[in-house]
């Protein structure tokens, strides 16, 4: 049980993404460097009367363009379909064979694992609401379960129901790749895929896998998802200007923009990557996780949990805060997150706080919930590759209390060797991953 080789180095050898700004990594990156917004009117269902009428959707996505075995995944919910495309891209980039029973990539399938931060699929909306309408007895204020069962049995389909299970995206990747190694799926709200990448790194360090397909997938763009977030008043209601609605760190921020998508990185032991001779994109050097243990509804006022997670990640990486060149913020564009995240960064980074660029790509991507952290990590890898820091767009009115360098509106050329990715979730989940340029 106790094996842990802390000297084992873990690197990133592939990346893939399906998100509102594109269906592959380079398209996403071009859009981000250009400061484009992926936000628009909600088209997946009729949200025209909801408090929020816009979101950040994945558009024009066809699974069959990404995987050959689309028939094995024909019942996929949105999250599963997205994650298949992202995983296929990441695997190809890393030289890992997909869609074949006889891989020749040099990776033992029993040592290839999966770790996703993945969300539940949408309920089957038409039947779901119809069955309630049919069965609700208004007079008695109770459900007639016999009537409900009749509608449900008649119209629900077993696979559509199964696809709602949050473990299903991982199941689809397993079939796509033949992975037989350690496989887990976690769902720690908006921090899930950062946690997945962090824990997957630990699985490789522990020696239980040579490579891990890690990341996240989620779509909460459905009537109940939008209802839930609207009722929490967590979403922006800037219906007259969707593309400027996600405006992290501004004084006028009024909530996040609901997005969807999937993002995958291939994590690999350095030994395995060297043996296979694949390109190394970055090294994962630190991971920290903590809980606020404060309130179900709010973050800890002083960012106690965030500070602990950042410090844990720095300690795991064996570096000081002075060594971090760029912070990819959780930066949701909610009043609460952006001010507490700023406080936490100040507490840890002290005199370096105002000198370390902090940006939120959620200003362009929206909030991919469970998939957010992994998508943002990919932008960190690219920031290191190209020595460019992504911008925070829509940053025109400064909140006087928020005085860090948020890289307003335009990407910035600057040397980036070490980047830190922060993710914080409802309920007080905090996860931080630190990556570094690979220099041999």
């Amino acid at each position, binding site marked *: 049980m106790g094996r842990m080789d802390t000297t084992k180095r873990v690197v990133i050898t592939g990346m893939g993404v399906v998100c509102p700004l594109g269906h592959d990594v380079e398209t996403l990156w071009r859009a981000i460097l250009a400061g484009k917004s992926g936000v628009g009117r909600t088209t997946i269902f009729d949200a025209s009367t909801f408090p929020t009428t816009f979101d950040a959707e994945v558009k024009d996505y066809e699974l069959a363009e990404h995987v050959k075995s689309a028939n094995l995944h024909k019942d996929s919910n949105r999250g599963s379909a997205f994650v298949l495309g992202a995983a296929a891209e990441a695997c190809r980039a890393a030289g890992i064979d997909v869609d074949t029973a006889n891989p020749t990539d040099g990776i033992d399938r029993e040592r290839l694992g999966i770790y996703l931060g993945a969300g539940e699929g949408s309920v089957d909306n038409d039947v779901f609401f119809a069955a309630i309408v049919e069965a*609700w007895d208004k007079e008695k204020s109770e459900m007639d*379960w016999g009537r409900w069962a009749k509608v449900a049995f008649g119209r629900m389909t077993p696979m559509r129901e199964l696809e709602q299970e949050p473990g299903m995206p991982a199941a689809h990747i*397993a079939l796509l790749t033949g992975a037989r190694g350690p496989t887990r799926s976690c769902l720690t709200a908006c921090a899930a895929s950062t946690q997945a990448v962090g824990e997957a790194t630990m699985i490789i360090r522990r020696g239980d896998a040579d490579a891990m397909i890690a990341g996240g997938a989620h779509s909460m763009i459905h009537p109940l998802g939008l209802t839930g977030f609207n009722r929490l008043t967590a979403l922006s209601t800037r219906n007259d200007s969707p593309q400027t609605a996600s405006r992290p760190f501004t004084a006028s921020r009024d909530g996040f923009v609901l997005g969807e998508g999937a993002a995958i990185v291939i994590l690999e032991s350095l030994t395995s990557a060297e043996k296979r001779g694949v390109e190394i994109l970055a090294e994962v050097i630190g991971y920290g996780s903590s*809980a606020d243990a404060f309130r179900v509804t709010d973050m800890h006022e002083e960012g106690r949990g965030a500070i602990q997670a950042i410090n844990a990640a720095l300690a795991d990486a064996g570096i000081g805060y002075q060594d971090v060149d760029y912070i990819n913020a959780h930066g949701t564009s909610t009043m609460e997150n952006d001010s507490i995240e700023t406080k936490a960064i100040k507490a840890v980074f002290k005199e370096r706080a105002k000198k370390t660029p902090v940006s939120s790509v959620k200003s362009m991507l929206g909030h991919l919930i469970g998939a957010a952290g992994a998508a943002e990590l990919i932008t960190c890898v690219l920031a290191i590759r190209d020595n460019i820091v992504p911008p925070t767009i829509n940053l025109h009115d400064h909140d006087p209390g928020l005085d860090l360098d948020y890289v307003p509106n335009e990407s910035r050329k600057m040397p980036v060797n070490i980047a830190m990715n922060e993710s914080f979730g*409802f309920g007080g989940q905090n996860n931080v991953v630190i990556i570094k340029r690979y220099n041999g």
Partner: protein
Amino acid sequence: MCSTRVVITGLGAITPLGLTADEMWAGLCAGSCGIGRITAFDPVGFTCRIAGQAPDYDIRQYVPKSHRKATKLMSRDIELSVIAAQEALTDSGLKTKGIDAENINVDPARVAVNIGAGLISCDLVELAPAVAASVTEGRFDIRKWGKEGLELVTPLWLLKYLPNMLACHIGIIHDLQGPSNTITCGEAGSHLAIAEAGQIIARGDSDIAVAGGAEAKVNPIVMIRQCLLRRATSENNDDPASACRPFDADAKGSVFGEGAGVVILEKLTRAQGRGARIYAELAGVGQSNSLNPEYEHLEPDGKGVQLAIEKAMADAQIEPADLDLVIPHGTGIPGDDLAEAKGIEAALGEAARKIPVWPTKSMLSNTGAACGALDVIAAVCAMNESRIPAAKNCDRIADGCNLNIVRQPQSRKIRYALCCSYTFGGQTAALVLKNVDGETAK
């Protein structure tokens, strides 16, 4: 390389057999069955009308005064997990904020929480008035919902149904600020949560972990899903006690239920230092995948289960012959049970025919994300009493199952026990528990 050993120092369980781990164990030893006709809702019209339901409880008695208001934000899954965590922490002798705020003896930053959780289904009765207010000409009208229905949904509604809220409530009640994770791998969830918690302690990121799983499956949506997938039995509705028949020739499907199982994991040296009761050591963990395009079923040769078991044994550095007890997933779904039996047999080889195999779901029902943790607790109890109760409803072993299903209660020294699980979707898990009583093994 470090070699931190991780042990279990506390147990908590709420199950159809009772409100505590002791009641569960007593029920298992007596061959009791916690399955009965569903009372949580009227199951008329459902093909399966039976389930395992926990006894009544008052959640407010299980939380400190400061958290009573927050019980309004608890779905039943959350309640169950909070109850089991409260018992496990009390049992361990650790004093957290929620156990004894005056005498806290843990460092909150060094305690992790890892919980396996299911897909929490919303309460249709709670949602129904809002849906009913959104009807135009007899049909649900999404535009009306967006304008009017939505306003009738309680503002914090979503927070009851996020799977990570089990771990969050536990963390808040007991002030546990270490790594916190929620594993959503269906019926393998709590094994994987315990595995990860053990690894977090082993790698030095925590000293203690509250780990396990909970799920409340006695809900119309969950039940209909299992009926539609034909995983739930549609026979034996009139004879609930004989309905769930793992590895039996007359098995017709699983019976679902609700429960929570939580164990306290602790660094061995810390547990020894405070003179804690040590139930067992978490000696090895393994995990893999079943690769089956029929996602709801285990692959026919059980390969994913086999690999998980082999890895767990390698992790614990033991041979199959070192095992004295296997608790399989054993759902009562004939094809799945047969596949699992093949996987276990392939992993254990010759020894598979001798090692006692004891399925528990005929008594506990299939509690989803809780079931793995409940099996760990059952294994620990068996180990501590050197006693293996009899399997229930396994009267005529199914053809092709070459396992030594325990037909009669046995007294047996258990050196190592193996628990394994798998889930729809394919994730598989296995845990090896070691009897540390006198360090007799190896």
